[in-house]
């Protein structure tokens, strides 16, 4: 079988599977088509094309952007489905759509940079990211402990929702701050 035939067959199968899933899960053919299209785009990005075998090395740096694009499409699709057809709270729906859009934009940027031949991440940036994650984990631990004792001693009252929201915010902020600090400081 030719590679293009295989690719087209897989794409068609994805659309059919997406349609079936859409009908089963949401009882709506439009959602099915959308789910199928999203699945087809994801598979197309994952599968190598006709001429890509020779350029195996050059494709490697594009992986990161591709994954972000695929995740962005998937989250955005879920967000759109949720926004139209589910009774979820407006805040949750818009958050899902916003995360999907941001991920898609970041993925596109990474993909474009990788295509230009720019090095997106090297050993130093990976080392910094890992260190920042480790620092952020410990800061989060301290933050949780502080919140727990503040709640326990009656200094503040947290609901599950506010606790989760604060944690989400704290983890991202501490990671970004530590990363910025390590970028300036170096590892000496």
């Amino acid at each position, binding site marked *: 079988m030719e590679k293009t035939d295989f690719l087209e067959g897989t794409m068609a199968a994805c659309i059919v599977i997406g349609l079936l899933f859409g009908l089963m899960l949401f009882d709506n053919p439009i959602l099915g088509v959308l789910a199928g299209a999203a699945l087809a785009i994801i598979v197309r990005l994952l599968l190598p094309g006709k001429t890509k075998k020779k350029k195996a090395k050059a494709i490697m740096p594009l992986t990161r952007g591709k994954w972000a694009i695929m995740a962005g499409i998937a989250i955005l699709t879920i967000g759109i489905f949720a926004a139209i057809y589910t009774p979820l709270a407006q805040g949750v729906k818009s958050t899902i759509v916003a995360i999907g859009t941001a991920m898609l934009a970041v993925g596109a940027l990474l993909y474009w940079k990788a295509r230009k*031949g720019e*090095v997106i*991440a*090297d*050993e*130093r*940036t990976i080392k910094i990211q890992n260190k920042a994650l480790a620092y952020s984990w410990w800061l989060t631990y301290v933050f949780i402990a502080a919140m727990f004792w503040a709640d326990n001693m009656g200094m503040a009252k947290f609901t599950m929702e506010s606790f989760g929201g604060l944690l989400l915010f704290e983890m991202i902020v501490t990671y970004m701050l530590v990363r910025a600090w390590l970028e300036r*400081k*170096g*590892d*000496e």
Partner: protein
Amino acid sequence: MKTRIKEFRARFGLTQDELAKKVGVRRETIVFLEQGKYNPSLELAHNVAKVFKVKIEDVFIF
């Protein structure tokens, strides 16, 4: 760790960006290396030394 990258770069007429591309890292990493603010992996040290056609210990001062 102190390095002589800047000196070798000047000798070979390479910019930071060109050297970064040759060894497959970001330009900022070369800046940090030159400032002595980053300890490279053995692989990166080897690649940098290879570009300048010298031994690792000629470029990196331990």
